[in-house]
């Protein structure tokens, strides 16, 4: 294969050999997929959402299938930032892949503390989750209000020199307004979208199917919403974007890139095809060659 095409991208100073990352919460801390994926071939590894203290998460059932999608309500089960920094991240240090740590807090001060703890770790960047629909406090309450979102972004930015990526929620009246505020608060990049708040009822038990009643919708079903969100924000806001939402193929990834994403992250797609990220990287390269395009960066925002 002709190797003259360039897949490398740079997002907020994080250098990636290709624009394909994993989406937080769908790829654990990476090693879970090591039997299927060579982690060193990823553009970036975005790891499971981490909180200040360990969290048990929501009672099961935590997952339900919907047409071309899933609803999840994990509730941020994680071992807490101390364990992540001291025991998990050191193992990722020699994997030759930029690691982006996703953080979630109950208050802006929590987010600031989480960011500080990552300052001396191997993290290449911080993804700030202000959009988790599955926890009672924090999460989406920050992401759905532009002022609160900006407050969190500012608190994190003031606590770290690492690139700060704010993960936006689609469960808002205007994603552009939230993006605008967090950009002004100093965000270095945006990732979008987190899951859409949804619900399923079990008609046999006549009760909500998920233990948490509500869950976040992801998978191919949400892709058009995500592509539209990326398009709108790319037009108005001058920040690089990580596009997320229902990406399972290189064709999907290209839609996001052409809408304005510099990087794409694969989430639910990993569950269906554990080698989805690798297949997408290979097929993006093939697309560039077939279409005589030298650099993937030439495609970012091409559809505008």
């Amino acid at each position, binding site marked *: 294969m002709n190797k003259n095409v360039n897949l490398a991208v740079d997002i907020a100073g994080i250098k990636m050999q290709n624009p394909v990352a994993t989406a937080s*919460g*769908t790829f654990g801390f990476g090693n879970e997929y090591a039997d299927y994926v060579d982690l060193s071939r990823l553009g970036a590894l975005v790891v499971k959402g981490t909180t200040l203290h360990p969290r048990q998460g929501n009672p099961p059932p*935590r*997952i339900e299938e919907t047409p*071309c999608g899933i609803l999840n309500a994990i509730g941020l089960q994680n071992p807490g930032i101390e364990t992540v920094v001291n025991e998990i991240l050191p193992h990722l240090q020699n994997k030759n892949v930029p690691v982006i740590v996703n953080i979630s807090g109950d208050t802006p001060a929590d987010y600031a503390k989480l960011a500080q703890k990552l300052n001396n770790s191997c993290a290449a960047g911080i993804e700030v989750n202000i959009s988790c629909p599955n926890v009672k406090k924090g999460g989406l309450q920050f992401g759905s209000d532009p002022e609160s979102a900006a407050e969190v972004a500012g608190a994190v930015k003031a606590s770290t020199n690492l690139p700060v990526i704010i993960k936006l929620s689609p469960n808002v009246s205007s994603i552009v307004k939230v993006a605008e505020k967090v950009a002004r608060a100093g965000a270095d990049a945006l990732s979008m979208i987190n899951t859409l708040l949804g619900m399923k009822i079990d008609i046999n038990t006549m009760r909500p199917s998920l233990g948490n009643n509500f869950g976040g919708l992801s*998978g191919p079903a949400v892709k058009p919403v995500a592509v539209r969100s990326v398009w709108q924000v790319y037009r108005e806001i001058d920040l690089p974007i990580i596009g997320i939402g229902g990406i399972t193929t290189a064709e999907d990834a290209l839609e996001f890139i052409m809408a304005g994403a510099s990087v794409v992250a694969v989430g639910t797609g990993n569950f269906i095809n554990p080698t989805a990220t690798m297949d997408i990287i290979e097929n993006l390269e093939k697309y560039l060659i077939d279409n005589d395009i030298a650099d993937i960066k030439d495609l970012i925002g091409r559809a505008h």
Partner: protein
Amino acid sequence: MKPVKKTFDIIEKKQIKPCYGLLKLYAPELAAGAKPGQFLHVKCSGTMDPLLRRPISIHAVQRSGKTISMLYRKAGRGTSMLDSLDKLDVMGPLGHGFNMSCSGTPLVVGGGIGAAPLYFLLQELSGMQMQVDVFIGASSSEHLLAVEDIKALGHCVRTATDDGSAGYRGPVTDTCLPYLNKDVQVFACGPVPMLKKLAGDMEENKAAGQFSLEEKMGCGVGACLSCVCKTYQEKEKEYTYSRVCVDGPVFSAGEVVWK
């Protein structure tokens, strides 16, 4: 063995009773490396709907023929599509299977589709020249599975059905209760009410054992934390959520929190 992601040829399909199916795959590496209690995470169609893979236990392994069988309940749209396929996209073998080096006389208890993975365990026990007591239960004879095949391996099978259409009328836990004591090692798989009752009976009679659990699953590799069950943390009264896909599907009976 390390799990693989691969497409295997389906060489045999069978309808078993009204609600079940059996698929046989030509899969030399799985037949050689899979352990009883492990499962395969399979794609039911080439499309995005249904989206998720389905975890299906390994029912039988034919090492000489290099084949592996899955006995599954046609529970919904996904599993009902399986017998229309000629090839199957598989991730596996996944999960921790049964620990067969535990002390104690094996005693095997299955309920409904829970009998499926126990057959593979019983194949292995027969291979070790062990004939064991097996208790298989179901709601009715329509759902009583693998009984004749298990007998053919030389094991002693007692059956129970809720409606009395085969064997003892009542729960399978009634039939195995007299056999529970400190010298047995119970291997069980079945619906939650059965396992919950069995766990209580085992505790009263100081019997140890292992349960294979089922839960709705996402990734199958321990990343998404969807398929959790409540387990006790070691030597603590606190519980935690363990992943059925990688921490299980087989758990030690005393580890599982049934409340």
